[in-house]
């Protein structure tokens, strides 16, 4: 997702992040702003759950509101194998 969005947006930004950690889990709350090449901007609130193993992120489960994919989806090429 990072690669795909990075390739198609003009700018993306994470603001007002707040992190809470417990054991190998980290919960994050932040605002995610993307700017498309045409200059339009969308900001989503996000909650993310990350589970780390050996100091690196193994699982990332993030929920956005609104979902930036509604903006980016039409601009993305379908992944191989997708119907």
């Amino acid at each position, binding site marked *: 997702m990072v690669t795909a969005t990075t390739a198609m947006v003009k700018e993306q930004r994470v603001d007002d992040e707040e992190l809470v950690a417990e054991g190998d889990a*980290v919960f994050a709350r932040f605002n995610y702003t993307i700017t498309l090449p045409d200059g339009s901007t969308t900001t989503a609130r996000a909650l993310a759950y990350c589970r780390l193993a050996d*100091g690196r992120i193994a699982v990332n489960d993030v929920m956005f509101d609104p979902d930036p994919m509604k903006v980016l989806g039409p601009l993305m090429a379908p992944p191989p194998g997708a119907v």
Partner: protein
Amino acid sequence: MGAPGQPERGPADKCRRTQTKEFRACSSQDEALARCDTRSGAVAGARDRTSDLVQPGAGGLRGDHDVIRRQRTLQLACNARLLGSDWARLSRALDVAEENKAVVRRFMSEVVGGGNLDVADEVLAPNYVNLAMGGPTSPASRRWSLPPLPWSKNSGSTTRS
């Protein structure tokens, strides 16, 4: 003797009140923990003391991050003693949690926010899964999440221009 309407308080409560005064005089966390160690009834006493620290009127300390951090550390120390846990082990767990936060913060600021895809290889595990993209069985997740990382320097995939 307790206040009217209040249950009578025993030696342990007196000990806690004494320790509260002592703790307020402590200049460092180590000193406070040392006092906590040397007192009988230290667990309950330390809990009272740390609660005092973040109450309004406790010397204007409310909101002070150092004090809150000290309170949290002390409470965890007390919990560790209550549970019979090893303080050093608990301390290491706290360090790991802080390190994990730093990794996630770096991912968010440098990879997601900054578009620095080289950092992704450092902060993401080889078996990284993005559940938001449908999990490991999703074609989208395979494309964007599973090894080889699509943003890996060696994968030849799209990078930020």
